[in-house]
């Protein structure tokens, strides 16, 4: 049992770091990490992201896990993690291509024709083209397979109509991976087909979606008679669900966080500055106990991540630990932010800088945490995954299993 790199891993880390040191500035404390998406993205951000991606691609450091034929270096999953850890030490533009690289690309690799792979993958790797994922709909969230966006065949093209939502990156994307219903007359999973949509095509309308935080990190995408050539179909007609599953599996494994350890450390610092009953909050037994409880959970999640990395470094596929990490962290971060606001007493109803001068915007975190419990699987979906896939408990009784999609009750 150790937390050290193997010799190979250490060598890989050194090589990654030395390239990064030559091509980027170290990250200063307070600089947002690469996963921290800004609330709004402008053209300069997009240009910077593309430039950085191009630079990496030129040196063989882009999408290192991809096969060599598409520009990758066939790196192992643990090498990908090491690269990400090292890259996070440097000041880099926000990673606007993460959905494309982590979820669209594996799907294209698994289900695309060789023409499709050659057409799309190298351009995605080099940063030339940005991708987004057109899956969720207003009436299809946890029940993704209940989506309604229709794709109707018209000779060699498909005509797509519908509405997608919660689409990150759509406003500057070149391509969208679309899941649509080609046949409402068959059971719901059977009626789905996957397409790659040109986001610049007529009829594609991207509108920013305002969140409860006030930010616009996501979009709605309206598809109005969008024509998609049949050679942009990914996988067979009716195989959409099987294709989409590839993306979903990769999406979940992409969100390996630190479980909230940083926020809990911020909280400790904060508790030293706020007073309660005329002493620093950290000296109050009730608050100390609450803090320790947060810390133990956050560290538990972080250490569970180390077990996952261990599995990765052995070439094993990580299991449903991801669900645990998101389930526990989502609730934890909401509790932590609420607790931090409460620490300020009657001021706990303030927002932003007004609340504290600790450098942490707990109010924004409290708003954001409400979303963490939803995006990428609600608490309920995650518990179902754990119950069915880990504990092998009986699956849900499905009321919509063997009937045509159009006959499923929909409220």
């Amino acid at each position: 049992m150790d937390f050290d790199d193997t010799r190979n891993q250490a060598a890989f880390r050194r090589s990654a770091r030395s390239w990064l040191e030559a091509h980027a500035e170290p990250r200063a404390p307070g600089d947002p990490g690469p996963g921290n998406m800004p609330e709004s993205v402008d053209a300069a951000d997009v240009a910077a992201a593309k430039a950085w991606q191009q630079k990496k691609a030129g040196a063989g450091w882009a999408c290192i896990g991809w096969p060599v034929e598409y520009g990758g270096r066939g790196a192992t999953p643990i090498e990908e993690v090491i690269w990400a850890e090292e890259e996070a030490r440097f000041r880099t533009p926000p990673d606007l291509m993460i959905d494309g690289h982590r979820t669209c690309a594996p799907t294209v690799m698994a289900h695309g024709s060789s023409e499709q792979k050659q057409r799309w993958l190298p351009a995605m790797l080099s940063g030339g083209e940005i991708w987004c994922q057109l899956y969720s709909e207003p009436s299809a969230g946890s029940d993704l397979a209940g989506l309604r966006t229709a794709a109707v065949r018209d000779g060699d093209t498909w005509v797509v109509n519908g509405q997608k939502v919660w689409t990150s990156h759509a406003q500057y994307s070149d391509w969208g991976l679309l899941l649509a219903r080609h046949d409402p007359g068959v059971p719901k999973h059977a009626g789905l087909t996957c397409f790659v949509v040109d986001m610049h095509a007529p009829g594609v309308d991207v509108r920013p979606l305002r969140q409860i935080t006030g930010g616009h990190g996501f979009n709605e995408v309206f598809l109005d008679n969008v024509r998609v050539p049949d050679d942009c179909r990914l996988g067979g007609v009716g195989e959409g669900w099987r294709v989409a599953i590839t993306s979903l599996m990769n999406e979940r494994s992409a969100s390996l966080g630190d479980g909230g350890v940083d926020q809990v450390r911020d909280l400790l610092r904060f508790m030293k500055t706020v007073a309660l009953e005329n002493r620093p909050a950290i000296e109050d037994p009730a608050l100390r106990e609450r803090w320790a409880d947060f810390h133990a959970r956050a560290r538990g999640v972080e250490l569970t991540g180390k077990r996952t990395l261990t599995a990765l470094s052995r070439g094993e596929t990580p299991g449903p630990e991801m669900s645990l990490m998101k389930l526990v962290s989502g609730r934890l971060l909401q509790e932590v932010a609420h607790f931090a606001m409460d620490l300020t007493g009657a001021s706990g109803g303030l927002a932003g800088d007004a609340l504290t001068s600790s450098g942490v915007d707990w109010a924004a975190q409290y708003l954001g945490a409400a979303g963490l419990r939803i995006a990428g699987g609600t608490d309920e979906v995650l518990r179902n995954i754990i119950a069915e896939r880990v504990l092998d408990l009986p699956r849900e009784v499905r009321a919509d299993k063997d009937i045509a999609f159009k006959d499923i009750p929909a409220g």
Partner: protein
Amino acid sequence: MNFDFSDDQKLLRQAVRRYLEAHAPLSLCREALESGQGVSRALWEGAAELGWLGAAIPEAYGGGGFGRLALAVIAEELGRCLAPVPFSSSVCLATEALLLAGSGAQKERYLPGLAQGRCTGTFAFAETPGQSGLDSVRARVEDGRLTGRKRLVLDGGLADFAVVVALDSGRPVLVLADLSGPAVQRRPLASFDPSRPQAELRFLEAPVEGLGGGDSAAPLIERLLDGAAVLMAMEQLGGAARALEITRDFAVQRHAFGRPIGGFQAIKHRLADRWCDVELARSNAWYGAWALAQGSVDELREAACLARIAGCDAFTGMSEDMVEIHGGIGFTWEADCHLFYRRARLLSAALGNAAFWKRRLADRMARDAA
């Protein structure tokens, strides 16, 4: 045994609710929140006309003399619709302070205007983040002039006067400060719920007048906070109950996997738990309202804590679950969930949070049982 509101009070509730259904849809709260105004002038004037603001003010001073149970009913209904009006600050705190401790002259001068909504008051206490007790007060009165900074004042940006907790020769006092003069600086603060605005007030030798309290205003301040806590608990109850109703309706209408999501035990049981929270909050808030209306200071000491603790827990938990059960839709600005999420947070912080009232309850019960 009649632990329920009277028929008159129930009729009042019906009337209030009918009026609010017509004049205070949730879009009114949203407008106040988005406009940055933080208050609906029209609703406030309507409330004044209908006599809500003066419900607990004796008729002699221009009120309706309906008593605190009526006030509690109104608070709950305003809570249900997240009304963007300075009810808790002006009615439940400033007006109550005058009723409790004002001289005859002060009552004559202020109460009719408060009842008619011509003027609004507020209450200024907290100075330091975290601290809520009297021993954190530094604002001081010397020769009838107040100097100090009050960090957090509900509706402090628009109130005409404030009841301020300060020290006079080291003793806590309540004073009444006109906020329109040049010796008062107001700075609006970013409120977590912009439909309930907050401000910082700076007093620079501002002229003030004393407000009862005798040797020490400490018991008076306790009593004032206890009463306001009960009324705010009624507001929290209203908000929590409404959030539950909306979420329940959503869960019945929204389908996933061919069924209403409210048919899945995960949702059913969570809503059942939240219903329990709301009913516990209701019982505790009613008890607080009873003690407040009785004028029974002893029972109010316990009841205010119970009401406030249960109110904070119920509304916070319900508002968090409201967002989560609504799923992606609940996280959009367009959905109403965040209005409840914001209001729940604000009401849980104003007047001291649940932890503060828990400690207060344990202190009081341990002392009483000693």
